[in-house]
């Protein structure tokens, strides 16, 4: 039987597993833990047991592929309006480490037309080769044709790892392709590593609203697929003297695509985009009221950066959702991040913890934000922000 088994011999009824279970699925009966029908087999209880009493068993072997046939690390290089998205370079930086750990090549996959320069750029950023599908019909993203061609390539070249940016398109392409390939896909990974013995990719991602991190593997299916949000990984310094090969693979361009993109409209044209800015100044509920957000915007303007927000003030309607930083908002990784009147909930941290320097301004010295801050100011944002604006104005203008 598939399921969780608790060894009655080993279980001492200590209740540790009950604390771990999110689903109220464990009860104590006759001083032993038993699993009830709420169990979703999430496995969280297994490592919680100090007595090795809990096991998760799957009885049937899945139909598996010969994983030894699969080799190499791939990065899907999303492109928009002829320019490769930044996240692809970030993934190449990470992919390089994985490929080196496995001693296998790193490849980028690029769809579009007239993108020779972009293909070269991918090599400069770490790719050993670029599979470049050069065709007018794939200039713009289309779920059907992109999935079709991408899967053709994966079946032909058999990469062991495929990384895709967790953009709108990436989060659509990746699950559709993984489903066609009947393989695993881990969304929004924040950490990727190789287990050198098993040659498996260890994929770490936030779970339960960011309160827990989970490490996930895909042992018996290939490729091992993961999406990663923009700004989570760091690109390498480009090196245009690097050698790499641009391969024009033979693919069948699907002729009868039913899904049609009739129009594509760009509406977001912030002066400095939040995700691209070197400096981000974010405000939270500590600002007290909506009008004080102007201080955050002013400091951002003086520093030539962008203004962000915590979800609390987005939900309160003070600012637009497009400014939200965090797990359910944007991920940013600027050189300097200011958290002004933000408590530092895990979900907020999930969107900014990779910033180089984090400055926290909060009147509560015990606010969790100070735990990840580089510099902390215990104080009232309504006093400190005007002073900061003044200081930077004096020095910068």
């Amino acid at each position, binding site marked *: 039987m598939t399921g969780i088994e608790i060894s009655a011999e080993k279980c001492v009824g200590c209740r540790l597993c009950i604390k771990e279970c999110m689903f109220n699925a464990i009860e104590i009966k006759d001083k032993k833990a038993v699993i009830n029908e*709420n169990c979703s087999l999430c496995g*969280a209880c297994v490592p919680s047991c100090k007595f090795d009493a809990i096991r998760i068993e799957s009885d049937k072997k899945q139909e598996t592929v010969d994983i030894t046939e699969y080799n190499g690390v791939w990065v899907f290089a999303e492109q928009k309006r002829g320019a490769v998205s930044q996240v692809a370079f970030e993934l190449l930086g990470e992919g390089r480490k994985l490929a080196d750990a496995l001693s296998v090549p790193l490849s980028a996959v690029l769809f579009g037309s007239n993108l020779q320069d972009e293909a070269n750029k991918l090599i400069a950023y770490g790719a050993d080769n670029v599979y470049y599908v050069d065709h007018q019909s794939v200039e713009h993203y289309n779920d059907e044709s992109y999935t079709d061609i991408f899967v053709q390539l994966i079946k032909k070249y058999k990469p062991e790892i495929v990384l895709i940016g967790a953009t709108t398109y990436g989060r659509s392409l990746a699950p559709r392709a993984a489903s066609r390939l009947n393989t695993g896909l881990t969304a929004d990974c924040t950490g990727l590593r190789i287990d050198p013995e098993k040659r498996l990719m260890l994929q770490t991602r936030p779970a*339960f609203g960011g*309160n827990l991190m989970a490490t996930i593997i895909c042992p018996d299916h290939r490729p091992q697929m993961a999406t990663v949000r923009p700004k989570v990984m760091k690109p390498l310094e480009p090196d245009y003297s690097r050698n790499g090969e641009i391969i024009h693979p033979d693919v069948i361009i699907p002729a009868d695509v039913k899904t049609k993109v009739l129009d*594509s409209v760009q509406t977001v044209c912030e002066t400095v985009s939040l995700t691209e800015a070197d400096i981000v100044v974010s405000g939270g509920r500590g600002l007290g009221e909506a009008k004080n957000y102007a201080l955050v915007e002013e400091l951002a303007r003086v520093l030539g950066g962008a203004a962000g927000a915590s979800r609390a003030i987005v939900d309160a309607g003070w600012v637009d959702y497009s400014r939200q930083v965090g797990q359910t908002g944007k991920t940013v990784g600027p050189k300097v991040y200011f958290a002004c009147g933000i408590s530092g909930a895990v979900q907020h941290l999930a969107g900014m913890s990779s910033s180089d*320097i984090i400055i926290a301004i909060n009147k509560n010295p015990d606010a969790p934000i100070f735990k990840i801050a580089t510099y902390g100011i215990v104080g009232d944002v309504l006093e400190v922000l005007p002073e900061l604006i003044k200081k930077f104005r004096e020095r910068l203008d």
Partner: protein
Amino acid sequence: MNIIVCVKQVPGTTDVKINKETNTIIRDEAEAIINPFDEYAIEEGVRIKEKVGGSVTVLSMGIPKTAELLRETIAVGVDDAVLLTDRAFAGADTLATSYTLSMGIRKLGNYDLIICGKQATDGDTAQVGPSLAEKLGIPHTTNVRKIEEIREGYIRCQRMTDDGYEVVEMPLPAVITVVKEINEPRYPSIKGKLKAKKYEVKTLNAEDIGANLNLCGLNGSPTRVIKTFTPVHEIKAEMIEGTAREQAEKLADKLLAMRFVKCR
């Protein structure tokens, strides 16, 4: 137009708290809820039905208790609620979930449009919609914020992208996943609540939908969770003391000295 809305039961806690001493989640007694994004999916289904006629069926794969939540959806205009429940479905990752849902949908048959939420708040993966469409062999569009036109065999909708939106058309049947911008879900009416009270949710098990047990639940899930841990951050902040003015002064000095903030 026959519409199937996929809904998932998720933990009702919006703020999961961690016990600092034991590093474990403090279980909130708060009950389970329907994934908030799926409420928009239900509302959109009901609106389409009200406009062009047809029926709305909600479908979920979950534990037996999910039936109570599904029953409540009858109150906002849903016609039928079906729960796929079986021990064999437990432990499913998004691939196995999609497979099971696809078998349930095949069993229901005769559908034009399948609506999913953008993502479920327990895992935030947003994978089931596209993966399900693939298992059914029909097209999909994610992040739909508006349906411009829908009729027999045809849908045209607006999909939110990272920097704007695009207009996409597809033949039906198809899958869409919806964002919360698409509508404002209604409250149940008194009449609806009475109807819901009397309604009996249909349940189907693995055998009923003809599911291959190797492809369901834990057996059918290529991914495995091998470890969970609480995130730790080790950087220790350098605290800047003084009056507000002094603090601002010192911080500005530091940042300017590091040349992260440059003079224009």
